[in-house]
Protein backbone atom coordinates (compact mmCIF):
# COMPACT_ATOMS: atom_id res chain seq x y z
CA UNK A 1 0.00 0.00 0.00
CA UNK A 2 2.85 2.29 0.86
CA UNK A 3 4.35 1.52 -2.50
CA UNK A 4 1.13 2.40 -4.34
CA UNK A 5 0.55 5.55 -2.30
CA UNK A 6 4.11 6.70 -3.10
CA UNK A 7 3.40 6.68 -6.86
CA UNK A 8 2.45 9.95 -8.43
CA UNK A 9 -0.44 8.68 -10.60
CA UNK A 10 -1.14 12.02 -12.19
CA UNK A 11 2.37 12.04 -13.67
CA UNK A 12 2.18 8.40 -14.78
CA UNK A 13 -1.23 8.50 -16.45
CA UNK A 14 -0.55 10.93 -19.22
CA UNK A 15 -2.01 10.98 -22.70
CA UNK A 16 1.37 9.98 -24.12
CA UNK A 17 1.67 6.96 -21.82
CA UNK A 18 -1.88 5.86 -22.55
CA UNK A 19 -1.18 6.09 -26.31
CA UNK A 20 2.01 4.05 -25.85
CA UNK A 21 0.12 1.41 -23.87
CA UNK A 22 -2.56 1.18 -26.57
CA UNK A 23 0.13 0.83 -29.27
CA UNK A 24 1.84 -1.97 -27.27
CA UNK A 25 -1.45 -3.83 -26.83
CA UNK A 26 -2.28 -3.42 -30.52
CA UNK A 27 1.23 -4.54 -31.52
CA UNK A 28 1.07 -7.63 -29.36
CA UNK A 29 -2.61 -8.36 -30.02
CA UNK A 30 -2.30 -8.14 -33.81
CA UNK A 31 1.40 -8.85 -34.28
CA UNK A 32 1.63 -12.39 -32.94
CA UNK A 33 -1.58 -13.73 -34.56
CA UNK A 34 -0.46 -12.11 -37.85
CA UNK A 35 2.98 -13.69 -37.50
CA UNK A 36 1.47 -17.11 -36.85
CA UNK A 37 -0.85 -16.65 -39.85
CA UNK A 38 2.10 -15.74 -42.09
CA UNK A 39 4.06 -18.75 -40.83
CA UNK A 40 1.13 -21.07 -41.62
CA UNK A 41 0.71 -19.57 -45.10
CA UNK A 42 4.41 -19.84 -45.87
CA UNK A 43 4.46 -23.38 -44.45
CA UNK A 44 1.70 -24.45 -46.82
CA UNK A 45 3.39 -22.73 -49.78
CA UNK A 46 6.81 -24.31 -49.21
CA UNK A 47 5.56 -27.75 -48.15
CA UNK A 48 5.31 -29.10 -51.69
CA UNK A 49 8.49 -27.50 -53.04
CA UNK A 50 10.93 -28.23 -50.21
CA UNK A 51 11.80 -31.14 -47.94
CA UNK A 52 10.01 -31.30 -44.54
CA UNK A 53 13.22 -30.17 -42.83
CA UNK A 54 13.72 -27.16 -45.11
CA UNK A 55 10.08 -26.05 -44.77
CA UNK A 56 10.31 -26.40 -40.97
CA UNK A 57 13.50 -24.28 -40.94
CA UNK A 58 11.89 -21.60 -43.11
CA UNK A 59 8.85 -21.47 -40.82
CA UNK A 60 10.95 -21.28 -37.67
CA UNK A 61 13.22 -18.63 -39.21
CA UNK A 62 10.26 -16.43 -40.05
CA UNK A 63 8.70 -16.95 -36.61
CA UNK A 64 11.86 -16.16 -34.62
CA UNK A 65 12.81 -13.14 -36.80
CA UNK A 66 9.25 -11.78 -36.58
CA UNK A 67 9.16 -12.33 -32.82
CA UNK A 68 12.44 -10.43 -32.31
CA UNK A 69 11.16 -7.52 -34.44
CA UNK A 70 7.90 -7.47 -32.48
CA UNK A 71 9.67 -7.47 -29.10
CA UNK A 72 12.02 -4.67 -30.23
CA UNK A 73 9.03 -2.62 -31.43
CA UNK A 74 7.19 -3.19 -28.13
CA UNK A 75 10.24 -2.16 -26.08
CA UNK A 76 10.67 0.92 -28.27
CA UNK A 77 7.02 1.86 -27.71
CA UNK A 78 7.52 1.44 -23.96
CA UNK A 79 10.27 4.01 -24.07
CA UNK A 80 13.32 1.80 -23.69
CA UNK A 81 16.46 3.06 -25.37
CA UNK A 82 17.54 0.25 -27.71
CA UNK A 83 21.24 1.18 -27.83
CA UNK A 84 21.55 0.89 -24.06
CA UNK A 85 19.48 -2.28 -24.12
CA UNK A 86 21.67 -3.88 -26.81
CA UNK A 87 24.79 -2.91 -24.87
CA UNK A 88 23.40 -4.48 -21.73
CA UNK A 89 22.38 -7.52 -23.75
CA UNK A 90 25.97 -7.86 -25.02
CA UNK A 91 27.40 -7.84 -21.50
CA UNK A 92 24.69 -10.16 -20.30
CA UNK A 93 25.34 -12.38 -23.33
CA UNK A 94 28.98 -12.88 -22.35
CA UNK A 95 28.00 -13.72 -18.78
CA UNK A 96 25.27 -16.09 -19.91
CA UNK A 97 27.63 -17.60 -22.48
CA UNK A 98 30.14 -18.56 -19.81
CA UNK A 99 27.39 -19.93 -17.64
CA UNK A 100 25.80 -21.97 -20.40
CA UNK A 101 28.63 -23.50 -22.36
CA UNK A 102 26.71 -26.74 -22.99
CA UNK A 103 23.79 -24.89 -24.53
CA UNK A 104 26.09 -22.84 -26.75
CA UNK A 105 27.89 -26.01 -27.79
CA UNK A 106 24.54 -27.58 -28.64
CA UNK A 107 23.52 -24.53 -30.69
CA UNK A 108 26.75 -24.58 -32.68
CA UNK A 109 26.46 -28.36 -33.13
CA UNK A 110 22.90 -27.79 -34.35
CA UNK A 111 24.14 -25.34 -36.97
CA UNK A 112 26.67 -27.93 -38.15
CA UNK A 113 23.97 -30.61 -38.30
CA UNK A 114 21.75 -28.37 -40.38
CA UNK A 115 24.52 -27.46 -42.82
CA UNK A 116 26.03 -30.97 -43.06
CA UNK A 117 22.63 -32.70 -43.44
CA UNK A 118 23.52 -36.21 -42.24
CA UNK A 119 19.77 -36.74 -41.84
CA UNK A 120 16.54 -34.88 -42.43
CA UNK A 121 13.12 -34.71 -40.77
CA UNK A 122 11.36 -38.03 -41.41
CA UNK A 123 14.54 -40.14 -41.72
CA UNK A 124 14.96 -43.24 -39.57
CA UNK A 125 18.25 -42.94 -37.69
CA UNK A 126 20.17 -44.94 -35.10
CA UNK A 127 22.18 -43.24 -32.37
CA UNK A 128 23.89 -45.66 -29.98
CA UNK A 129 21.05 -48.05 -29.06
CA UNK A 130 18.26 -45.63 -29.93
CA UNK A 131 16.46 -46.01 -33.23
CA UNK A 132 13.70 -43.64 -34.35
CA UNK A 133 12.26 -41.25 -36.91
CA UNK A 134 13.51 -37.67 -36.81
CA UNK A 135 10.64 -35.44 -35.66
CA UNK A 136 12.53 -32.15 -35.57
CA UNK A 137 16.02 -30.70 -35.71
CA UNK A 138 16.08 -27.81 -33.26
CA UNK A 139 18.78 -25.46 -32.07
CA UNK A 140 19.56 -27.45 -28.93
CA UNK A 141 18.46 -30.99 -29.70
CA UNK A 142 17.07 -33.48 -32.18
CA UNK A 143 13.78 -35.14 -31.29
CA UNK A 144 13.20 -38.74 -32.32
CA UNK A 145 10.03 -40.78 -32.29
CA UNK A 146 11.08 -44.35 -31.56
CA UNK A 147 9.44 -47.32 -33.24
CA UNK A 148 7.45 -48.04 -30.04
CA UNK A 149 6.17 -44.44 -30.06
CA UNK A 150 8.33 -42.77 -27.44
CA UNK A 151 9.90 -39.34 -27.70
CA UNK A 152 13.66 -39.22 -27.33
CA UNK A 153 15.55 -35.92 -27.09
CA UNK A 154 19.18 -36.13 -28.13
CA UNK A 155 21.42 -33.07 -27.54
CA UNK A 156 23.02 -31.86 -30.78
CA UNK A 157 26.47 -32.04 -29.21
CA UNK A 158 26.25 -35.80 -28.72
CA UNK A 159 25.07 -36.25 -32.32
CA UNK A 160 28.16 -34.43 -33.55
CA UNK A 161 30.47 -36.50 -31.31
CA UNK A 162 28.91 -39.95 -31.79
CA UNK A 163 28.29 -42.21 -34.73
CA UNK A 164 24.89 -41.71 -36.33
CA UNK A 165 23.46 -44.24 -38.80
CA UNK A 166 20.87 -42.99 -41.27
CA UNK A 167 18.91 -46.13 -42.05
CA UNK A 168 16.55 -44.70 -44.65
CA UNK A 169 18.84 -42.30 -46.52
CA UNK A 170 18.87 -44.40 -49.70
CA UNK A 171 15.75 -45.81 -51.36
CA UNK A 172 16.80 -49.47 -51.20
CA UNK A 173 18.56 -51.51 -48.53
CA UNK A 174 20.08 -54.96 -48.11
CA UNK A 175 18.85 -57.41 -45.50
CA UNK A 176 21.54 -59.86 -44.36
CA UNK A 177 20.63 -63.19 -42.79
CA UNK A 178 23.24 -65.54 -41.36
CA UNK A 179 22.16 -69.14 -41.79
CA UNK A 180 23.81 -72.34 -40.61
CA UNK A 181 23.00 -75.78 -42.06
CA UNK A 182 24.19 -79.21 -40.97
CA UNK A 183 27.47 -80.55 -42.36
CA UNK A 184 25.65 -83.39 -44.14
CA UNK A 185 23.65 -80.98 -46.35
CA UNK A 186 24.24 -80.42 -50.08
CA UNK A 187 25.68 -76.90 -50.45
CA UNK A 188 24.34 -76.48 -54.02
CA UNK A 189 20.84 -77.44 -52.89
CA UNK A 190 20.95 -74.92 -50.03
CA UNK A 191 22.03 -72.22 -52.47
CA UNK A 192 19.27 -73.13 -54.97
CA UNK A 193 16.57 -73.14 -52.28
CA UNK A 194 17.64 -69.77 -50.90
CA UNK A 195 17.71 -68.15 -54.35
CA UNK A 196 14.29 -69.62 -55.08
CA UNK A 197 12.93 -68.11 -51.86
CA UNK A 198 14.24 -64.69 -52.94
CA UNK A 199 12.81 -65.11 -56.44
CA UNK A 200 9.31 -65.89 -55.18
CA UNK A 201 9.15 -63.35 -52.37
CA UNK A 202 7.29 -60.23 -53.58
CA UNK A 203 9.36 -57.91 -51.38
CA UNK A 204 12.78 -59.09 -52.62
CA UNK A 205 14.09 -57.08 -55.53
CA UNK A 206 15.24 -58.99 -58.62
CA UNK A 207 18.03 -56.47 -58.99
CA UNK A 208 20.41 -55.89 -57.28
CA UNK A 209 20.53 -59.67 -57.31
CA UNK A 210 20.17 -61.66 -54.07
CA UNK A 211 23.42 -63.01 -52.73
CA UNK A 212 24.24 -66.40 -51.19
CA UNK A 213 27.75 -66.52 -49.76
CA UNK A 214 29.34 -69.63 -48.24
CA UNK A 215 31.00 -67.97 -45.28
CA UNK A 216 32.65 -70.55 -43.12
CA UNK A 217 33.02 -74.10 -41.82
CA UNK A 218 31.59 -73.29 -38.39
CA UNK A 219 31.79 -75.26 -35.14
CA UNK A 220 28.35 -76.74 -35.53
CA UNK A 221 27.24 -75.77 -39.04
CA UNK A 222 28.15 -74.71 -42.54
CA UNK A 223 27.64 -70.96 -42.35
CA UNK A 224 25.99 -68.97 -45.16
CA UNK A 225 25.18 -65.31 -45.69
CA UNK A 226 21.87 -64.80 -47.48
CA UNK A 227 21.46 -61.14 -48.54
CA UNK A 228 18.41 -59.74 -50.30
CA UNK A 229 17.67 -56.20 -51.46
CA UNK A 230 14.37 -54.49 -50.72
CA UNK A 231 12.66 -51.10 -50.86
CA UNK A 232 13.20 -49.34 -47.52
CA UNK A 233 9.49 -49.15 -46.73
CA UNK A 234 9.08 -52.94 -46.98
CA UNK A 235 11.48 -53.85 -44.17
CA UNK A 236 9.07 -55.46 -41.71
CA UNK A 237 7.09 -57.28 -44.41
CA UNK A 238 10.29 -58.61 -45.96
CA UNK A 239 11.88 -59.65 -42.67
CA UNK A 240 8.81 -61.56 -41.50
CA UNK A 241 8.10 -63.26 -44.80
CA UNK A 242 11.67 -64.25 -45.69
CA UNK A 243 12.49 -65.67 -42.26
CA UNK A 244 9.28 -67.70 -42.24
CA UNK A 245 9.82 -68.94 -45.79
CA UNK A 246 13.38 -70.06 -45.01
CA UNK A 247 12.17 -72.15 -42.08
CA UNK A 248 9.26 -73.61 -44.03
CA UNK A 249 11.29 -74.40 -47.14
CA UNK A 250 14.16 -75.91 -45.19
CA UNK A 251 11.68 -78.12 -43.31
CA UNK A 252 10.03 -79.13 -46.59
CA UNK A 253 13.34 -79.87 -48.31
CA UNK A 254 14.72 -81.71 -45.28
CA UNK A 255 17.57 -79.26 -44.75
CA UNK A 256 18.64 -79.30 -41.12
CA UNK A 257 19.35 -76.08 -39.23
CA UNK A 258 21.56 -77.41 -36.42
CA UNK A 259 21.77 -76.07 -32.90
CA UNK A 260 25.27 -75.61 -31.41
CA UNK A 261 26.66 -79.00 -30.37
CA UNK A 262 29.96 -80.58 -29.31
CA UNK A 263 31.37 -83.90 -30.61
CA UNK A 264 33.79 -85.76 -28.39
CA UNK A 265 36.52 -87.57 -30.39
CA UNK A 266 37.89 -90.75 -28.91
CA UNK A 267 40.96 -91.07 -31.12
CA UNK A 268 39.51 -93.48 -33.67
CA UNK A 269 37.26 -92.71 -36.67
CA UNK A 270 35.26 -95.92 -36.79
CA UNK A 271 35.18 -97.29 -33.34
CA UNK A 272 32.41 -96.19 -31.00
CA UNK A 273 33.08 -94.22 -27.89
CA UNK A 274 34.16 -96.77 -25.28
CA UNK A 275 31.65 -96.98 -22.52
CA UNK A 276 31.92 -99.21 -19.51
CA UNK A 277 28.88 -99.96 -17.44
CA UNK A 278 29.88 -99.98 -13.80
CA UNK A 279 27.46 -101.62 -11.31
CA UNK A 280 26.45 -99.25 -8.59
CA UNK A 281 27.79 -100.03 -5.17
CA UNK A 282 25.12 -100.33 -2.53
CA UNK A 283 25.81 -98.19 0.48
CA UNK A 284 26.76 -100.17 3.50
CA UNK A 285 24.67 -99.36 6.54
CA UNK A 286 26.65 -97.57 9.18
CA UNK A 287 27.45 -99.49 12.25
CA UNK A 288 25.82 -98.08 15.31
CA UNK A 289 28.14 -96.55 17.86
Amino acid sequence: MLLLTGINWSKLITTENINSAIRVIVLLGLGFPLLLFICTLVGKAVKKRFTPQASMLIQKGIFYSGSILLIISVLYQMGFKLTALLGAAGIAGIAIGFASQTSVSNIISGLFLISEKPFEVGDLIKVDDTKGNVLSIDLLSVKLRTLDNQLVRIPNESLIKNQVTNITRFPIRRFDINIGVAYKEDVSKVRTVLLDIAKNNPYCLDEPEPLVLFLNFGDSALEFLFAVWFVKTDFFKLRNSVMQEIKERFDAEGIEIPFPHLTLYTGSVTEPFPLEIVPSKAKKPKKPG
Partner: protein
Amino acid sequence: MGALDIWNRSKIGSGEILRSQIGPLLLWFRKIEDELHIAFERLPEPDTIVDATGPSAVNGVESEGLDWGRWIVGAETNIVQVLPIMPDRPVVVHPELPVNIPTGREALFFVSIPVWVRVLIGEKKPIELCEVPVLILSNTWFGDPMSGQLCYSLRSRARRQIKDSETNPSRAVCPVKIRNNSPRQLDIERLCVHVVHLKTYSGDKNLWTNEVTITFRGDDQAGKIDYSNKRPAFEPIGEMLSEARAPIKDTILKRSIGSFRLISGM
Protein backbone atom coordinates in the same frame (compact mmCIF):
# COMPACT_ATOMS: atom_id res chain seq x y z
CA MET B 1 -18.34 -62.40 -76.84
CA GLY B 2 -14.91 -61.95 -78.49
CA ALA B 3 -11.66 -61.85 -76.64
CA LEU B 4 -11.41 -58.07 -76.84
CA ASP B 5 -15.10 -57.31 -76.18
CA ILE B 6 -14.52 -57.64 -72.48
CA TRP B 7 -14.01 -53.92 -72.02
CA ASN B 8 -17.67 -53.08 -72.72
CA ARG B 9 -20.08 -51.69 -70.15
CA SER B 10 -22.39 -54.04 -68.27
CA LYS B 11 -25.54 -53.45 -66.28
CA ILE B 12 -25.82 -54.79 -62.75
CA GLY B 13 -29.13 -54.98 -60.86
CA SER B 14 -29.66 -55.04 -57.14
CA GLY B 15 -28.95 -58.51 -55.75
CA GLU B 16 -27.20 -59.57 -58.94
CA ILE B 17 -23.68 -61.02 -59.14
CA LEU B 18 -21.43 -60.47 -62.18
CA ARG B 19 -18.13 -62.10 -62.92
CA SER B 20 -15.42 -61.06 -65.35
CA GLN B 21 -12.27 -62.92 -66.30
CA ILE B 22 -9.18 -61.22 -67.69
CA GLY B 23 -6.61 -63.97 -68.11
CA PRO B 24 -5.66 -65.26 -64.66
CA LEU B 25 -7.68 -62.56 -62.85
CA LEU B 26 -11.30 -63.13 -61.85
CA LEU B 27 -13.33 -60.06 -60.86
CA TRP B 28 -16.59 -60.38 -58.96
CA PHE B 29 -19.26 -57.67 -58.66
CA ARG B 30 -22.24 -57.73 -56.31
CA LYS B 31 -24.84 -54.96 -56.05
CA ILE B 32 -26.77 -54.65 -52.79
CA GLU B 33 -29.09 -51.60 -52.73
CA ASP B 34 -26.78 -48.56 -52.97
CA GLU B 35 -23.56 -50.51 -52.45
CA LEU B 36 -21.33 -52.19 -55.00
CA HIS B 37 -19.15 -54.98 -53.67
CA ILE B 38 -16.03 -55.97 -55.59
CA ALA B 39 -13.76 -58.96 -55.06
CA PHE B 40 -11.00 -60.51 -57.06
CA GLU B 41 -9.06 -63.74 -57.12
CA ARG B 42 -6.12 -65.03 -59.10
CA LEU B 43 -6.01 -68.40 -60.80
CA PRO B 44 -2.95 -70.63 -60.47
CA GLU B 45 -0.43 -70.95 -63.33
CA PRO B 46 -1.17 -67.46 -64.64
CA ASP B 47 1.12 -67.62 -67.67
CA THR B 48 -0.98 -70.27 -69.39
CA ILE B 49 -4.43 -68.70 -68.98
CA VAL B 50 -5.64 -66.55 -71.88
CA ASP B 51 -9.43 -66.75 -71.36
CA ALA B 52 -11.37 -63.51 -71.08
CA THR B 53 -14.99 -62.56 -70.49
CA GLY B 54 -16.60 -59.22 -69.73
CA PRO B 55 -18.76 -58.73 -66.61
CA SER B 56 -21.60 -61.20 -67.03
CA ALA B 57 -24.23 -62.60 -64.68
CA VAL B 58 -23.52 -65.81 -62.83
CA ASN B 59 -26.46 -67.74 -61.49
CA GLY B 60 -26.00 -68.83 -57.93
CA VAL B 61 -22.27 -69.39 -58.38
CA GLU B 62 -20.20 -67.57 -55.86
CA SER B 63 -16.63 -68.39 -55.14
CA GLU B 64 -16.14 -69.08 -51.47
CA GLY B 65 -13.70 -67.15 -49.36
CA LEU B 66 -13.76 -64.00 -51.46
CA ASP B 67 -12.49 -60.86 -49.80
CA TRP B 68 -15.16 -58.31 -50.76
CA GLY B 69 -14.61 -54.54 -50.72
CA ARG B 70 -17.61 -52.17 -50.42
CA TRP B 71 -18.25 -48.96 -52.37
CA ILE B 72 -21.28 -46.73 -51.72
CA VAL B 73 -22.23 -45.85 -55.29
CA GLY B 74 -25.93 -45.01 -55.07
CA ALA B 75 -28.99 -47.10 -55.85
CA GLU B 76 -29.45 -45.70 -59.39
CA THR B 77 -25.85 -46.24 -60.49
CA ASN B 78 -25.83 -49.64 -62.14
CA ILE B 79 -23.32 -49.58 -65.03
CA VAL B 80 -20.04 -51.36 -64.41
CA GLN B 81 -17.03 -51.23 -66.72
CA VAL B 82 -13.52 -52.65 -66.60
CA LEU B 83 -10.74 -51.05 -68.61
CA PRO B 84 -7.11 -51.98 -69.21
CA ILE B 85 -4.45 -49.56 -68.05
CA MET B 86 -0.69 -49.80 -67.99
CA PRO B 87 1.12 -50.59 -64.69
CA ASP B 88 1.80 -47.76 -62.26
CA ARG B 89 5.60 -48.05 -62.41
CA PRO B 90 8.15 -48.55 -65.20
CA VAL B 91 8.69 -52.12 -66.36
CA VAL B 92 12.20 -53.51 -66.77
CA VAL B 93 12.12 -56.04 -69.58
CA HIS B 94 14.71 -58.82 -69.55
CA PRO B 95 14.96 -60.44 -72.99
CA GLU B 96 15.35 -64.21 -72.65
CA LEU B 97 18.42 -63.96 -74.86
CA PRO B 98 20.64 -60.85 -74.72
CA VAL B 99 20.24 -58.71 -77.84
CA ASN B 100 23.09 -56.88 -79.58
CA ILE B 101 22.56 -53.96 -81.96
CA PRO B 102 25.60 -52.84 -83.96
CA THR B 103 26.36 -49.15 -84.27
CA GLY B 104 24.05 -47.20 -86.59
CA ARG B 105 21.36 -49.93 -86.65
CA GLU B 106 17.83 -50.02 -85.28
CA ALA B 107 15.47 -52.81 -84.29
CA LEU B 108 11.77 -53.09 -83.49
CA PHE B 109 10.63 -55.34 -80.64
CA PHE B 110 7.14 -56.26 -79.50
CA VAL B 111 7.01 -56.45 -75.73
CA SER B 112 3.95 -58.02 -74.16
CA ILE B 113 3.17 -56.25 -70.86
CA PRO B 114 0.54 -57.51 -68.36
CA VAL B 115 -2.05 -54.78 -67.89
CA TRP B 116 -3.82 -53.53 -64.79
CA VAL B 117 -7.61 -53.49 -64.67
CA ARG B 118 -9.42 -50.31 -63.70
CA VAL B 119 -13.00 -50.69 -62.45
CA LEU B 120 -15.39 -47.84 -63.19
CA ILE B 121 -19.02 -47.25 -62.36
CA GLY B 122 -21.58 -44.91 -63.91
CA GLU B 123 -22.75 -44.11 -67.41
CA LYS B 124 -22.14 -40.48 -68.34
CA LYS B 125 -19.19 -39.63 -66.16
CA PRO B 126 -17.83 -42.96 -64.93
CA ILE B 127 -16.11 -42.87 -61.55
CA GLU B 128 -12.99 -44.92 -60.93
CA LEU B 129 -13.39 -47.31 -58.00
CA CYS B 130 -10.22 -49.38 -57.92
CA GLU B 131 -7.34 -50.82 -59.90
CA VAL B 132 -5.84 -54.26 -59.75
CA PRO B 133 -2.93 -55.85 -61.63
CA VAL B 134 -3.81 -58.88 -63.73
CA LEU B 135 -0.46 -60.43 -62.87
CA ILE B 136 1.69 -59.56 -59.86
CA LEU B 137 5.15 -58.79 -61.20
CA SER B 138 8.18 -58.89 -58.97
CA ASN B 139 9.92 -55.66 -58.03
CA THR B 140 13.29 -54.64 -59.32
CA TRP B 141 15.58 -51.65 -59.15
CA PHE B 142 16.80 -49.87 -62.26
CA GLY B 143 19.86 -47.69 -61.94
CA ASP B 144 22.13 -46.70 -59.13
CA PRO B 145 21.23 -47.96 -55.60
CA MET B 146 21.34 -44.36 -54.36
CA SER B 147 19.24 -42.70 -57.03
CA GLY B 148 17.64 -45.33 -59.26
CA GLN B 149 14.00 -46.16 -59.72
CA LEU B 150 11.68 -48.86 -58.42
CA CYS B 151 10.27 -50.86 -61.34
CA TYR B 152 8.47 -54.08 -62.14
CA SER B 153 10.50 -56.91 -63.58
CA LEU B 154 9.35 -58.81 -66.66
CA ARG B 155 10.94 -61.65 -68.61
CA SER B 156 10.12 -61.34 -72.29
CA ARG B 157 10.93 -63.03 -75.53
CA ALA B 158 11.09 -59.55 -77.10
CA ARG B 159 9.62 -60.80 -80.37
CA ARG B 160 10.56 -59.22 -83.67
CA GLN B 161 7.38 -60.24 -85.50
CA ILE B 162 3.87 -59.60 -84.23
CA LYS B 163 2.42 -62.58 -86.09
CA ASP B 164 4.46 -64.81 -83.78
CA SER B 165 2.72 -63.64 -80.66
CA GLU B 166 -0.34 -65.32 -79.27
CA THR B 167 -3.42 -63.24 -78.52
CA ASN B 168 -3.64 -62.56 -74.82
CA PRO B 169 -6.30 -60.09 -73.65
CA SER B 170 -4.56 -59.60 -70.32
CA ARG B 171 -1.44 -58.21 -71.98
CA ALA B 172 -0.83 -55.14 -74.12
CA VAL B 173 1.69 -55.26 -76.93
CA CYS B 174 4.14 -52.37 -76.75
CA PRO B 175 6.17 -51.70 -79.91
CA VAL B 176 9.65 -50.59 -78.85
CA LYS B 177 12.07 -49.35 -81.49
CA ILE B 178 15.71 -49.11 -80.41
CA ARG B 179 18.22 -47.06 -82.37
CA ASN B 180 21.91 -47.30 -81.69
CA ASN B 181 23.45 -43.92 -82.50
CA SER B 182 26.51 -44.55 -80.34
CA PRO B 183 29.93 -45.40 -81.75
CA ARG B 184 29.92 -48.86 -80.14
CA GLN B 185 27.78 -51.99 -80.26
CA LEU B 186 24.78 -51.90 -77.93
CA ASP B 187 24.40 -54.97 -75.71
CA ILE B 188 20.90 -55.07 -74.27
CA GLU B 189 20.45 -57.18 -71.17
CA ARG B 190 17.50 -55.24 -69.86
CA LEU B 191 15.28 -52.46 -71.04
CA CYS B 192 13.30 -50.01 -68.92
CA VAL B 193 9.94 -49.10 -70.48
CA HIS B 194 8.27 -46.13 -68.81
CA VAL B 195 4.77 -47.52 -69.22
CA VAL B 196 3.12 -44.72 -67.23
CA HIS B 197 3.40 -42.62 -70.41
CA LEU B 198 1.59 -45.21 -72.57
CA LYS B 199 -2.03 -45.30 -73.73
CA THR B 200 -3.89 -48.53 -74.44
CA TYR B 201 -5.76 -49.26 -77.65
CA SER B 202 -8.09 -52.03 -78.66
CA GLY B 203 -6.76 -53.83 -81.72
CA ASP B 204 -8.19 -56.53 -83.95
CA LYS B 205 -6.48 -59.33 -82.04
CA ASN B 206 -4.42 -57.67 -79.33
CA LEU B 207 -4.38 -54.82 -76.90
CA TRP B 208 -1.83 -52.23 -78.01
CA THR B 209 0.07 -49.28 -76.65
CA ASN B 210 1.54 -46.37 -78.55
CA GLU B 211 5.02 -46.89 -79.98
CA VAL B 212 8.17 -46.04 -78.04
CA THR B 213 11.43 -45.11 -79.75
CA ILE B 214 14.59 -45.23 -77.67
CA THR B 215 17.75 -43.74 -79.10
CA PHE B 216 20.95 -44.87 -77.45
CA ARG B 217 23.70 -42.26 -77.72
CA GLY B 218 26.42 -43.76 -75.56
CA ASP B 219 27.06 -44.74 -71.94
CA ASP B 220 27.92 -41.21 -70.92
CA GLN B 221 24.73 -39.69 -72.35
CA ALA B 222 21.10 -40.18 -71.38
CA GLY B 223 18.97 -42.04 -73.91
CA LYS B 224 16.37 -40.13 -75.91
CA ILE B 225 12.86 -41.53 -75.57
CA ASP B 226 9.99 -40.62 -77.90
CA TYR B 227 6.41 -41.65 -77.17
CA SER B 228 4.39 -41.63 -80.37
CA ASN B 229 1.03 -39.94 -80.23
CA LYS B 230 -0.23 -41.98 -83.16
CA ARG B 231 -2.03 -45.27 -82.94
CA PRO B 232 0.16 -48.29 -83.61
CA ALA B 233 -0.15 -49.46 -87.21
CA PHE B 234 0.58 -53.17 -86.94
CA GLU B 235 -3.04 -54.32 -87.15
CA PRO B 236 -6.43 -52.56 -87.45
CA ILE B 237 -6.83 -50.46 -84.32
CA GLY B 238 -10.15 -49.53 -82.71
CA GLU B 239 -10.79 -47.00 -80.00
CA MET B 240 -8.38 -45.81 -77.35
CA LEU B 241 -9.35 -47.63 -74.18
CA SER B 242 -7.39 -45.65 -71.63
CA GLU B 243 -5.25 -42.56 -71.45
CA ALA B 244 -1.69 -42.71 -70.14
CA ARG B 245 -1.29 -42.35 -66.36
CA ALA B 246 1.23 -39.57 -66.92
CA PRO B 247 0.68 -38.17 -70.42
CA ILE B 248 3.79 -36.76 -72.02
CA LYS B 249 4.20 -34.68 -75.16
CA ASP B 250 7.88 -33.93 -75.47
CA THR B 251 10.85 -36.18 -75.87
CA ILE B 252 12.40 -37.13 -72.57
CA LEU B 253 15.98 -37.96 -71.78
CA LYS B 254 16.45 -40.94 -69.51
CA ARG B 255 18.65 -43.95 -69.15
CA SER B 256 16.59 -46.86 -70.42
CA ILE B 257 19.00 -49.51 -71.49
CA GLY B 258 21.02 -51.73 -69.21
CA SER B 259 23.97 -53.21 -70.99
CA PHE B 260 26.52 -55.62 -69.59
CA ARG B 261 28.96 -52.80 -68.97
CA LEU B 262 26.39 -50.80 -67.03
CA ILE B 263 25.50 -53.75 -64.81
CA SER B 264 28.96 -54.97 -64.02
CA GLY B 265 30.65 -51.59 -63.92
CA MET B 266 33.50 -52.89 -66.08
